[in-house]
């Protein structure tokens, strides 16, 4: 089997038993890799009723077939578990050196079960793995953990994925960090690692990565490198993803003040353009990436001088305008805290903005927020709130450490209405009411509030649909996006490269060069559909129903007024129709349960089907 090592590690933390297992070729053909393998692992191994923080939950790390190859931006891995944040499938994809290193070490993935009796980390080296004591690493930040493990092993090239204190303290927003600036951000995978006493996974490999057609793949890759330097990726190269700030503000879909508005009056102060001019110290790339979107900011003055952190659109937007904050220094500091203490920047930003709104509405007292002046726009208070949230410190930390949905449940008083979540996970940095196809895609996503599952914002942003209204035809847009993205997330390649492939035949060409699988476009898309349905089926096992596929109440109950929108709102009947249209396209019933006929056609377990 080419494109795969054909082996994965199974680590039982309870017993300390480590085994190498064979990856069956039929699994590779059926689920391709990455996202597909996460769905397969979790569906096979996590039964209904499992408590996400119990030893019975499984945390897995998978690569896809392109990992470790010269294909542009192919060094990506995925981690998955039953999410403690949503109670459904949880996963996150990160770049950096982990994926290629694991391949070179001889494994496609790692499946971890049980709970270690004391803090430990997994060390994977060429063809073998061991558990090592992590007592001295417990309490350390992710950046310290990476350095300490490299020192301990006297090897600078060891790649490390680790959790910070937030994961140890079981925050459901806890993420996993590797190579300092890359995160498995969403779904609380870091929390599951913390619950298992698993501080880190360290990997070092020096073996070969095998593909079906090396010469053909290098030739294709060189062609793709050239395209990566062309117009399709220019905005990422110059300003990084913060290029979106001004674009989204013009479109009125830049969330500000906890999604109360879609424009921000001080957007110029936090634009990608301003950031490049005043903050960016270095532009860096992940392994095998010819784009280099990663913009590393440095704070030059003030209380946070010397802070260096990686800034992307979502972090900048949600810790910035969505909290009313226009101070790039404060936002850079907040991102550093999130990355080092181990919390997701998206959830952090949207949780702080919820607390700010609750404070301004008088629902949170000064005592509730430890005396902070938690008004919108106060950068210092935002930074301190992020720190307290990550460390569960004080009244404020205790209230918001597990995100806005749980904080709102505790607080009550109607604050649930402005917790900007779907499936209890915080919404990405796209306004709901002026981007209604996007909203449908986010709300129906299997991992919750997700902008990365279908690219459903694209038709809205490009203007190919009426973005202020919904109808049943939008289901098809989400359906098609999800099926293709399931392939992208299973290969796994960076979504920023999607525009450089001329059409879907180039994805099948890539698959053939790497794995030798000679798929038609139809077979590939069908595989994407299978992968997505497998993930959905896992959610059905955990009780997913129609009500879970709705955006937060603000979308339906408050009209949006700002510099661009004049009373935009999502009409509930239109949303209902669009959602039904999506289910119909998917061949799911009105509650979003896949039909038996569909599951059988896709070769999936039909037990839960209708």
């Amino acid at each position, binding site marked *: 089997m080419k494109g795969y090592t054909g082996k994965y590690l199974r680590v039982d933390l309870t017993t300390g038993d480590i085994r190498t297992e064979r990856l069956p070729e039929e699994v590779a053909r059926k689920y391709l890799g990455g996202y597909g393998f996460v769905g397969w692992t979790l569906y096979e191994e996590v039964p209904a009723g499992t408590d996400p923080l119990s030893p019975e939950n499984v945390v897995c790390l998978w690569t896809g077939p392109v990992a470790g190859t*010269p294909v542009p931006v192919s060094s990506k891995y995925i981690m998955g578990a039953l999410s403690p944040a949503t109670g459904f499938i949880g996963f996150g994809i990160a770049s950096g050196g982990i994926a290629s290193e694991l391949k070179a070490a001889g494994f496609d993935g790692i499946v971890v079960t049980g709970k270690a009796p004391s803090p430990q980390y997994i060390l994977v080296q060429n063809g073998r793995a061991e558990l090592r004591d992590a007592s001295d690493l417990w309490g350390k930040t992710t950046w310290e953990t990476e350095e300490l493990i490299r020192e301990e092993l006297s090897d600078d090239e060891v790649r490390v994925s680790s959790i910070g204190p937030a994961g140890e303290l079981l925050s459901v927003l806890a993420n996993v960090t590797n190579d300092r600036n890359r995160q498995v951000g969403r779904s609380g995978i870091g929390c599951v690692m913390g619950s298992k006493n698993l501080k880190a996974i360290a990997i070092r490999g020096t073996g070969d990565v095998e593909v079906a057609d090396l010469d053909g793949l*290098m030739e294709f890759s060189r062609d793709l*490198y050239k395209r990566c330097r062309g117009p399709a990726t220019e905005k990422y190269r110059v300003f990084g993803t913060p290029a979106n700030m001004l674009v989204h503000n013009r479109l009125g879909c830049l969330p500000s003040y906890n999604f109360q508005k879609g424009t921000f009056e001080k957007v110029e102060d936090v634009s990608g353009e301003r950031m490049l001019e005043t903050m960016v110290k*270095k532009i860096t790339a992940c*392994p*095998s990436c*010819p784009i280099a979107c990663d913009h590393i900011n440095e704070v030059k003055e003030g209380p946070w001088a010397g802070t260096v952190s990686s800034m992307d659109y979502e972090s900048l937007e949600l810790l910035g305008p969505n909290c009313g904050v226009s101070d790039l220094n404060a936002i850079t500091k907040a991102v550093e805290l999130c990355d080092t203490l181990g919390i997701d920047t998206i959830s952090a930003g949207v949780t702080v903005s919820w607390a700010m709104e609750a404070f301004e509405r008088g629902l949170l007292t000064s005592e509730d927020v430890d005396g902070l002046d938690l008004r919108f726009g106060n950068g210092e208070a935002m930074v301190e709130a992020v720190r307290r949230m990550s460390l569960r410190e004080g009244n404020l930390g205790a209230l918001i450490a597990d995100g806005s949905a749980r904080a709102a449940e505790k607080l009550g008083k109607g604050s649930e209405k402005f917790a900007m979540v779907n499936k209890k996970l915080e919404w990405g940095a796209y306004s709901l009411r002026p981007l209604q196809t996007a909203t449908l895609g986010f709300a129906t996503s299997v991992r919750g509030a997700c902008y990365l599952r279908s690219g459903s914002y694209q038709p809205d942003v490009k203007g190919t649909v009426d973005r202020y209204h919904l109808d049943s035809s939008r289901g098809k847009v989400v359906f098609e996006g999800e099926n293709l993205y399931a392939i992208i997330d299973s290969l796994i390649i960076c979504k920023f490269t999607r525009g450089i492939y001329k059409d879907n035949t180039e994805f099948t060409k890539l698959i053939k060069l790497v794995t030798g699988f000679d798929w038609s476009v139809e077979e590939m898309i069908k595989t994407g559909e299978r992968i997505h349905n497998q993930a959905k089926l896992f959610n059905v096992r955990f009780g997913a129903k129609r009500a879970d596929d709705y955006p937060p109440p603000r979308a339906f109950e408050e009209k949006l007024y700002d510099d661009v929108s004049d009373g935009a709102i999502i009409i509930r009947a239109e949303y209902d129709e669009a959602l039904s249209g999506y289910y119909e396209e998917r061949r799911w019933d009105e509650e979003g349960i896949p039909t038996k006929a569909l599951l059988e056609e896709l070769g999936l377990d039909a037990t839960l089907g209708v």
Partner: protein
Amino acid sequence: MEAKKIIVCDTEKCTGCEICEYACSIYKEKRINWSRSRIRHVRIEPTFDIAIACRKCEEPLCIKACPRDAVVVLSDGSVKIDKDKCNGCGWCIEACNFGALKLDWEKKCAFTCDFCADLGTPMCVEVCPYEALEYTTLDQVGHEAGKKAFKRIIEELS
């Protein structure tokens, strides 16, 4: 004698993508294995990246260090390791100030960059998507630096 050409890396342009390492191992070894690349990417956190290959030193320490006279200098200034003489002791690797030699565990012998003599331009330079790598002479590097400095003065004065 023709001026020696070496691979220089513009650290402002280098992003740490390691595509040079992939390209090198694929071209020179016909396999994907970046640990067998002749050029080596080094990142010093948080913001410094460089790719380094053999510098064609005037007085190569690798040659001096070899107890078996297995390292010899060629007419273009690059060094070649005589596989029959090398026993993989690794002193040349220790001696090199740039980490430009590596040990081949399978062949039990050291290896280093030959600048893709058969290609004219080294593959890494050819492939670097950021044009951070250049195959050039130190004299030309100096000339370019002078030009750049002078351009800045002109811009400041105008």
